């Protein structure tokens, strides 16, 4: 009866150093009444993915959702949310809704860049070191990974900004490089694990070339947990870039980047709460959405 609950391929991996251990454990649902919950999950995932798609659309075409020019002084300063200014106006009378919408574009694309850099770099390093465990390449890359890990991501980003100038995209690349270490660790562990799978050895003994074993059997087996890890890091990257801008190292005013909006609005928190709170809530909501997607992707792993 064990085969009723058989997970033929999903590797359960616990690498020596775990960056996000909760992502890696294949946990059987315990307790009463999980049946309904399990059935609801795929639908919930679909709903969340639809929301994400909408966000991407808005990020790509902010003009569709924005009602005003994000930089134009269209109203009086500090008008509370109303029919014409949905999120109110800021200290010099710019429409906050349009600024948030345009800010999404910057936040979204810069974090996407960070995640892509982290994913690609981390996967390449992880696969290269995991394929021959304990080899020269593995040891070299491990030392390099640990060295980068020792430097906080924000510090690395600050260094990059000092060297190459301000901007969310420069910060994003630096954050991506720092985050790549986590991906490298995860992928390395999964690749080592996947190579012990029965069908990977079977492919090797039937004469398949190492490169093909890797692309055809190992990488597809490794991919699902990495996908979920990526979604989680998307949210983290967004927070990191927001924090940098908030501190004044990322985007600079008048850019509508969310960190800039929060930093600009906090001075007026007492008499015009919306200027800082609304961008803050937007950032939190998007990060929560991405984390929830990461969780659901992990739960629904085949």
């Amino acid at each position, binding site marked *: 009866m064990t085969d009723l609950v058989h997970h033929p391929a999903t590797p359960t991996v616990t690498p020596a150093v775990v960056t996000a251990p909760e992502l890696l454990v294949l946990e059987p649902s315990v307790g009463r009444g*999980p049946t309904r919950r399990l059935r609801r999950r795929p639908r919930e995932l679909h709903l969340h993915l639809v929301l994400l798609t909408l966000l991407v659309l808005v990020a790509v075409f902010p003009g569709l959702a924005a009602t005003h020019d994000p930089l134009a002084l269209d109203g009086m300063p500090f008008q509370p949310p109303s029919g014409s200014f949905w999120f109110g106006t800021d200290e010099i009378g710019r429409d906050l809704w349009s600024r948030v919408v345009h800010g999404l574009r910057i936040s979204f694309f810069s974090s996407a860049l960070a995640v892509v850099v982290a994913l690609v770099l981390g996967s390449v390093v992880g696969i290269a070191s995991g394929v021959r465990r304990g080899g020269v390449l593995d040891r070299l890359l491990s030392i390099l990974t640990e060295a980068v890990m020792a430097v906080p991501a924000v510090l690395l980003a600050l260094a990059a900004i000092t060297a190459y100038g301000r901007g969310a995209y420069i910060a994003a690349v630096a954050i991506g490089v720092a985050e790549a270490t986590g991906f490298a660790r995860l992928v390395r562990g999964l690749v080592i694990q996947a190579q012990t799978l*029965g*069908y990977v050895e079977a492919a090797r003994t*039937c004469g398949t070339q190492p490169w093909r074993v890797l692309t055809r059997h190992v990488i597809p087996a490794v991919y699902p947990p990495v996908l979920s890890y990526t979604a989680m890091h998307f949210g983290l990257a967004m927070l990191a870039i927001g924090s940098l801008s908030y501190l004044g190292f990322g985007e600079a005013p008048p850019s509508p980047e969310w960190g800039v909006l929060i930093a600009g609005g906090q001075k007026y928190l007492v008499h015009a709460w919306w200027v800082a709170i609304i961008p803050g809530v937007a950032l939190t909501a998007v990060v929560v959405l991405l984390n929830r997607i990461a969780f659901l992707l992990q739960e629904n792993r085949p």
Partner: protein
Amino acid sequence: MTVDTATATSTDTNTLLRIAGLSVGYRTGEHEQTALDDVSLDIARGRVTAVIGESGSGKSTLAHAVVRLLPGSGTITGGRVLFEDEDLLARTDREFRPLRGARIGFVPQDPIASLNPTKTISAQIREAFSLTGSRLGADEVEQRIVEDLRDLGFADPGSLLPLYPHELSGGMRQRILIAIAFSQRPELVIADEPTSALDVLVGREVLRSLHQVRSKHGTTVVLITHDLVLASRNADDVVVLQGGRVVEAGPVAEVFARPQHAYTRSLLASSARVTEGRVLSIAEAYRRHDRPTDVVPRTEAGVAIELTGVSKAFGRDGGHVQAVDDVTLQVAAGSTFALVGESGSGKTTTSRIILGLERADAGTVRVLGEDVGSLGRAGVRALRRRMQVVYQSPYESLNPRLSLGAIVAEPLEAYRIGSRASRRTRVAELLDRVQLPASYAGRRPQELSGGQRQRVAIARALALDPELVVLDEPVSALDATIQAQVLELLQDLQRDLGLTYFLVTHDLAVVADVAGRVGVMRHGQVVELGSAEDVVLRPQHDYTQALLAV
């Protein structure tokens, strides 16, 4: 069944556990799968009842449903479980908990996964006392633990208690689990395949100690098993399950001697060793069986495999293990050679050396006329084209993401043989060879049963038209009725294609079915080598005799 349920409350005193119309379903995604369908049976007080059935028959589900340890996706959809006339299903989880462990014990299947690796043996047995709210004092608990372990055949229980699970062998761990199950003197103990993860000789010892504690305390035992020999040797009553239904129940002697249901008859027919209600020894079963004959080999060379003084050790200075120790053997082309041994005997390492997956530390390895030790990467690759493998578990050896067509075609693609179209034809031909419809090429492994999956693995091994096939426990993951079919297929293929088989197995019954020559391995050494007939009927070494006595 309605009559049964109506009178269920007036159970006669001889019945300890009565299951009436029990149904259990599993939910996977949108599908509801019935695991138990209206199952009714009585477990008599003080007796051993074996619940037998093949994988998917629902026997483990039955055990888990009674002790309420169904996995999250399983739900009881109907029926009653009456323990001492009380309907257990009427209890809430909280009300049920005091029963589990205290009055109903459970011995799980896997002794490796079922003990906590971070706690000592002593702490884990003690936990059974504290969790069930036992009123015994510390001294009494200590005394009982030592007494129980002694009953279970541990000569010096005191020295065992401070150890951690990893310091014990599988058989010892399983006996610890039995000690935990019996520690609260429950009326009923349910043992779910207690020996299937163990070697045969060890499993026999474990069952012997289970019997000892059982008879001492007069406990009722339910033994879940797929092994007919085990059931007929250890049980008083038997319940036969098929596809979630009870097809037959009664005293073992009666059911095995005069099976009423067609399924029970086919189950008994698949086991060469249980005939007319009696268990035959392996030798007796062998005498009744047709002898396998060697075939006309495809290789010109007379010898397919020649190992001379082969040794292989693992680990560095600290944990040095001599996995293979001075092994010398020959396999004639066109014959089947079986290497028999228990886990850790070195049989698998030997087969990996032959396949070029491990390098021998010493000795020469000649396979199909090539000296494997001196071959470079290209040489091994060229040799692999002529020798292929079938692995033990078809659940692990097939990539669940690929279609069967892609799996079978993989070796052809690896060696760039034929065009896309010709490969497709070849796949259809190979599937036909292993008696699967060509339309299966589009399916995925998950849609197939274990036996069908193993056929796919065999088709893949045949794709390159090899001369030698290494069979690594090819049927041990399969049900008995399926085993016979797969072995027959392997024999047909050998005859038609002139194959040489190198069979690695722990099961002498499989050997008796197919092998011409046999080597028995223990602690890395070949302790007995000869024709199957000599080894099975006139074993020389003590160890071979012990294996045959199982």
